[in-house]
Structure formats: C-alpha cells, structure tokens
C-alpha cells in the first residue's frame, strides 16, 4: 500500500510539473510550485517510513513550514510588482 501511495504521488507530481511549465499566468506556476511542495512533504513522510528512517517527521514538518512561507513571500512579491487592476 505504501508503494501504491508513492506511485500515485509521483504520477501527480509529473502532472503538476507539466502545469508549472505550461501555466499561462504566473499564479498557475505559483500554485503548481505550492502543490509540488506539499507532494514533497508527503513523499518524504511515506518514503521515510517505508525506508525505515528515524526522524523523517521532523524533515516533513520543516518542509511544510518552508513551503507555506515561500508561497506567501512569492505572492507578496508578485502582488507588489503587479500593475493596477482595471476599474
């Protein structure tokens, strides 16, 4: 069951990377990067348990926090540099 979960995570990561390369606007790319980070957290957790690592949960928690902070920071940057909305 762990192997099936990891295969499903890898398949969804491939689809997300396709959207990140094809995304027409910058927000598609930011969303794809955010989803990819969440899938990375899941792959670390499931793969760490399957391979018998000792402290994979700490690494997964750190990746989740870093992913959230990075997404908010990138969104602030693009929101500040965006042009004024049409009235």
């Amino acid at each position, binding site marked *: *069951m*762990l192997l*099936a*979960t990891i295969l*499903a*995570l890898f*398949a*969804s*990561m491939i*689809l*997300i990377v*396709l*959207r990140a390369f094809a995304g027409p*606007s910058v*927000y*598609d790319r*930011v*969303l*794809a990067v*955010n*989803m990819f980070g*969440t*899938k990375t*957290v*899941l792959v670390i*957790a*499931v793969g760490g*348990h399957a391979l018998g690592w000792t402290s*994979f*949960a*700490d690494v*997964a*928690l750190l990746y*989740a*926090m870093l992913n*959230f902070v990075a*997404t*908010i920071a990138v*969104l602030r940057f*693009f*929101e500040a540099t*965006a*042009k004024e*909305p*049409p009235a």
Partner: protein
Amino acid sequence: MSLLVDILSGLCLLAGSFLCITGAIGLLRLPDVFCRLHAASLNETLGTPLILLGLALQVGPTLTSVKLFLVAVFILASNPTATHAMSRAALHSGERPLVDEKAQEISSSKS
C-alpha cells in the same frame, strides 16, 4: 486488532492517493486560474491529512505519529490560507474568472 488498523490505514492511504491524483488532473485540465485554484485547494486539503493519518496509523502510538499529526494540522491550516492569498493576488493583478456571457446577459436583463 492489528488487522483492523492495517485495513483502516490502507483505506486512508488509498483515499488520499486518489484525491492527490484527482487534484493534479484538475490542475492540468481545468480552463481558468480560479478553477485550478479550486481543484488544487480542496483536493489537497483533504488528501494530505488522509495520507498522513494512514501513515500515523501504521507507525503506531509513538512520538513520530504525534509529529505526523502536527504536520497534518499545519497543512490543514496553511493550505487554505495559501490558496486564498493566491486567488486574492490573482484577482488584484487583473485576472478575471471565466463566466458564461449569455447567462450573465439574461440575469442582468431580468434585474
């Protein structure tokens, strides 16, 4: 008892993987930024804690499962926040959601 825990964790892992793949397909196929945000946000917010719950059931009552529970709680809080900020930033930068023009005209002529 152990068999019951195994079945429960397998069910959680299967449901979480299904939601992850569905969210990725929705991210790839839907026509609009806001549709993609919708698909990504909802599937991710339920699928990630399901996979982590199934994993915590397999790990057993240790400190590791508590940390996995913390990861699930953090993602439950942070993922809707991130997608909300993303949709707000997209709306502020001039993106508009796709609407059905004909339905819009009918509703505006009625009012």
